[in-house]
């Protein structure tokens, strides 16, 4: 899941200073859960230029804790770039010299799009826990409306890692004629019982925090930071591999002697506490609950009697599927299930399993072979766009 962005200073290959924009939608959105959002806002950023044919647009889909700020900086002295700045920019895999890149914050998020921490125009109060449970399909529907507003009929590619990959997959099934390529990184056709179990622990951590107040904590000026912190700590373990944690922390301690107590002594404890604390100050607990449910419910094969192969039957885009060797959250086997179903359905697909020690988080880390594969595929798409243009 997209956690933190890499600290670096604005460089030549950056998209530079970015200003997010917001679009208001008046047309009601009927959700899979049966409820309706009569109006909503989506906040988004764009990088690069849309060509005359409007054929070079790429949609970036964020994961659990990501948002619209995928690349670039908000100010000159901004120390942190967007969460996928390593992959989006001039000369990078998603090359902004070639593509017009759109990145939004999804409905239910807490980055500026309509979600639990925004005002429900019908009541004048914040949505809080009453914000309807959205699904990946609903997101794709809202993204299609954003595409309409931006005059993008067809995406050259929809790209995402983890939960973002699920959106790319869903695009290819919901709007086969509006997507040329789907890039699905470190993703899965559905969550396993173990995945759902970890999500449930995260949810219980939040909902059992006395400051949670059934999700109505905004009005009480409290925040369930302890629960959110705990949820993040659990999540974080599942994003890393045993190997990566061993390499980073091993059994290093803050002092050479045991304290024979329960305060933080090991470096890994210190790290988890720090990450959890920092996250709990910037992310919204209701959004976290919602995102875990979006993950749990994702299962495109369910509409086809459980057959992934049939789910892919009507898709017509090309796929790039990428997995990482030490990812145990969405393991390479999950990606291989996707690939086998795509081949059985006679779809164009390429697949690579990248050797990486970074676990699920590897999709955010620009390792050499990952970048080579990603760049090669996006480069091929850029060629197609340019051929059709001339």
């Amino acid at each position, binding site marked *: 899941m997209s956690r933190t962005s890499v600290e670096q200073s604005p460089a030549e290959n950056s998209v530079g200073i970015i200003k997010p924009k917001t679009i208001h939608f008046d047309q009601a959105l009927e959700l899979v859960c049966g409820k309706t959002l009569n109006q909503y806002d989506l906040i988004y950023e764009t990088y690069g230029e849309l060509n005359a044919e409007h054929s070079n647009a790429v949609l970036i889909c964020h994961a659990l804790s990501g948002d619209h700020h995928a690349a670039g900086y908000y100010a000159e002295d901004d120390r942190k770039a967007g969460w996928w700045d390593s992959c989006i920019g001039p000369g990078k895999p998603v090359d902004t010299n070639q593509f017009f890149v759109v990145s939004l914050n999804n409905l239910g998020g807490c980055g500026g799009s309509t979600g639990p921490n925004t005002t429900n125009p019908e009541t004048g109060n914040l949505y809080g826990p009453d914000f309807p449970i959205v699904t990946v399909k609903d997101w794709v529907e809202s993204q299609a409306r954003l595409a309409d507003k931006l005059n993008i009929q067809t995406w050259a590619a929809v790209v995402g890692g983890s939960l973002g990959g699920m959106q790319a997959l869903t695009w290819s099934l919901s709007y086969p004629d509006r997507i040329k390529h789907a890039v699905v990184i470190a993703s899965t056709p559905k969550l396993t019982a173990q995945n759902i179990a970890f999500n449930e622990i995260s949810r219980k951590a939040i909902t059992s925090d006395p400051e949670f107040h059934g999700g109505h904590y905004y009005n009480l000026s409290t925040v369930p930071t302890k629960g959110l912190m705990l949820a993040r700590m659990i999540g974080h373990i599942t994003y890393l591999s045993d190997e990566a944690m061993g390499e980073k922390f091993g059994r290093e301690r803050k002092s050479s002697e045991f304290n024979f107590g329960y305060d933080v002594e090991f470096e890994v404890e210190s790290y988890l506490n720090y990450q959890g604390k920092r996250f709990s100050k910037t992310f919204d607990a209701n959004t976290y609950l919602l995102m875990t449910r979006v993950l749990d419910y994702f299962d495109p094969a369910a509409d086809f009697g459980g057959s992934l192969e049939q789910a892919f039957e009507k898709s017509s885009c090309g796929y790039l599927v990428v997995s990482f060797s030490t990812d145990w959250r969405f393991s390479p086997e999950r990606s*291989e299930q996707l690939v086998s179903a795509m*081949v059985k359905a006679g779809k164009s*697909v390429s697949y690579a399993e990248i050797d990486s020690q970074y676990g699920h988080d590897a999709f955010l880390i620009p390792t050499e072979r990952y970048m080579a594969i990603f760049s090669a*595929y996006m480069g091929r798409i850029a060629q197609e766009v340019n051929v059709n243009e001339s």
Partner: protein
Amino acid sequence: MRADLRVIEPWVEPDTQVLDLGCGDGTLLAYLQEKKRVLGYGLEIDQKQITSCIQKGVNVVEQDLDKKGLRNFADKQFDTVIMTQALQAIKRPDAMLDEMMRIGRQGIVTFPNFGYWRCRHYLLWYGKMPMSKTLPHTWYNTPNIHLCTFKDFEALCQQKNIKILNRTVVDANFEQSRFALMWPNLFAEFAVYRISR
């Protein structure tokens, strides 16, 4: 054009589905895509080769045949399953042939002939495992762990009820010579077989 492509191309029907086992940099599939409009997939484990395939616009799936086999593919899923110069490097060539016949309507197989006169001469004269331009490895580090002659291969096909539809024998440059046609097991360096069950 690579000489083996010229032999293989006429055996592949237009607009069909092709699986290339050990597809290398994707040259064969790119060629068949262009000439025959096939829907092609390659299996490969070499990282650089996989990137080359993607750059060519060839579908490539990273899959280790020795570890995973072909069990993720359905019966008769492909019209043609191709395996060039890899049969001798696989742990169980016999099981691989069975799997190729399960998932494909026809198979195309090429491999170096260990009965080639230079191999025989090398062993007879030097008393050592043959090495040549086509088989440059020493016995202890060679990837070619199951070398065979044409006769061996054809006996295996017969035993497995696999029909040999065509056989083209060639020398190292994929040229056909009179000697190779007359005494293939002695004078041909490679054969390209078209098989089905």
